[in-house]
């Protein structure tokens, strides 16, 4: 897969309307790590935003193009594949690939826009580049929007398990069943154990001196500030990385705190849209789903306006309420789902990264 990345990029670059997933994986991975990469790649291809997929492989990799193609076709989605070795080199593969991709784009352009109920929408919730305003403005406002989406039958995904540590008992209390509650503890404990195994004394060093200077007093408070972007709804399900939800409502996905990786996991799980809060500002977008950027920091909004869609800094300025900005975010979700382009889309940001659970061999 990584060996075909350059070729796939060249094909996508020559076809307007095509995007590629640039990644470094697919070979000499084993066990669960290999399964996760396969699940992520095929999951992204099956995302409702994707009209069709051309899988480009080398021909001899661990996670072969045929495996991905099979998983996509199983769901009845259009897909084709090319292997560089079978096509006898990258020049021929690129030529053929451009022709296939152009055909796919022409067909995709004939798709007509039609209304669909909110219950078919999955929104991934994300926070990154957080600062003191995140927990008091942007995340509470996003939480209001998340509750509104769930109330109307939609689904929102809370991820970044590392951020639950400290408030996992509060999150678990919102589990809709004993099994969900158990799973919340399990994934949080697993993340803590991994940190410990890596020699990190997480509990002993949180909140950090920087956090404390900024006003965060306890780990519970810091963690709650992150979790608050998921509002107050009950948690219906706990998903593995890149797993598709089986239930509607608020669900949790076990991902690391790394923004680009957690977004990749959520879109592989079917999220058609990402709502992303940032205190300090970040340009991160996504090749497959629009990313709505929200900041609660008035200075960040002013300085990075070309990257930010929603100004939640008005809450900090005392000019507007969490409830009103929450409604504005909800309205933006509807508009973006209906075709409005976000700033990260206009700027062409297509960051992508897959979480690994093991090393390459």
């Amino acid at each position, binding site marked *: 897969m990584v060996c075909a990345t350059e070729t796939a990029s060249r094909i996508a670059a020559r076809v307007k309307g095509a995007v590629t997933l640039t990644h470094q994986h697919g070979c000499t991975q084993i066990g669960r790590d290999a399964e996760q990469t396969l699940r992520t790649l095929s999951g992204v291809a099956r995302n409702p935003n994707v009209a069709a997929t051309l899988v480009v492989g080398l021909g001899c990799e661990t996670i072969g193009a045929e495996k991905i193609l099979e998983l996509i076709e199983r769901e009845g989605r259009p897909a084709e594949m090319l292997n560089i070795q079978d096509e006898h080199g990258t020049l021929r593969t690129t030529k053929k690939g451009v022709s296939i991709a152009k055909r796919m784009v022409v067909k995709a352009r004939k798709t007509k826009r039609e209304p669909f109920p909110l219950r078919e929408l999955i929104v991934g919730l994300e926070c990154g580049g957080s600062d003191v305003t995140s927990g008091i403005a942007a995340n509470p406002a996003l939480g209001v929007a998340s509750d509104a989406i769930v109330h109307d039958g939609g689904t929102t995904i809370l991820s970044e398990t590392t951020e639950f540590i400290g408030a996992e*008992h509060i999150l678990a209390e919102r589990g809709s069943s004993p099994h969900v509650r158990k799973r919340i*503890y399990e994934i949080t*404990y697993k993340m803590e154990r991994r940190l410990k195994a890596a020699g990190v004394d997480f*509990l002993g060093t949180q909140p950090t001196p920087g956090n404390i200077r900024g006003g965060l*007093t306890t780990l*519970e408070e810091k963690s709650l500030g992150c979790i*608050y972007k998921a509002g107050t709804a009950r948690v219906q399900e706990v998903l593995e990385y890149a797993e598709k939800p089986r239930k509607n409502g608020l669900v949790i996905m076990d991902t690391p705190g790394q923004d680009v990786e957690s977004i990749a996991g959520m879109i592989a799980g079917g999220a058609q849209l990402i709502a992303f809060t940032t205190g300090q500002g970040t340009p991160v977008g996504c090749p497959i789903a629009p990313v709505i950027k929200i900041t609660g920091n008035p200075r960040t909004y002013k300085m990075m306006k070309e990257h930010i869609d929603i100004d939640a800094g008005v809450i900090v300025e*005392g000019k507007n309420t969490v409830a009103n900005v929450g409604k504005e975010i909800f309205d933006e979700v509807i508009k973006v789902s209906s075709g409005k382009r976000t700033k990260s889309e206009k700027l062409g940001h297509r960051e992508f990264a897959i979480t690994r659970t093991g090393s390459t061999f």
Partner: protein
Amino acid sequence: MVRRKANAVVLSERDNVAVALDDIEQNTLVRVRKGDQILEVRADEDIPFAHKFAITNVQKGHPIYKYGEIIGKATRAIRRGQHVHVHNVEGMRGKANSWKTGRRR
């Protein structure tokens, strides 16, 4: 949009603290937004931006509520208007409360 500017906000109904939206000087009468209302609380000391202060008296050992949840407990009695931070609050998680988290040991 709202007419009077608030310089602090209470994030949830149950909370006993407000978060300063500005650096607040001691003795200022703070306009605290709580839902649709504005409360007035006099700052007992300087409260830095994004720091917390009590909006009611809190007894020693009693919980501090923010986001509608317990974020820690008061290590001494706290008066309405006082700064709420590491000098008078202690977190409970991270102190080997394994029974609370349900973790196997």
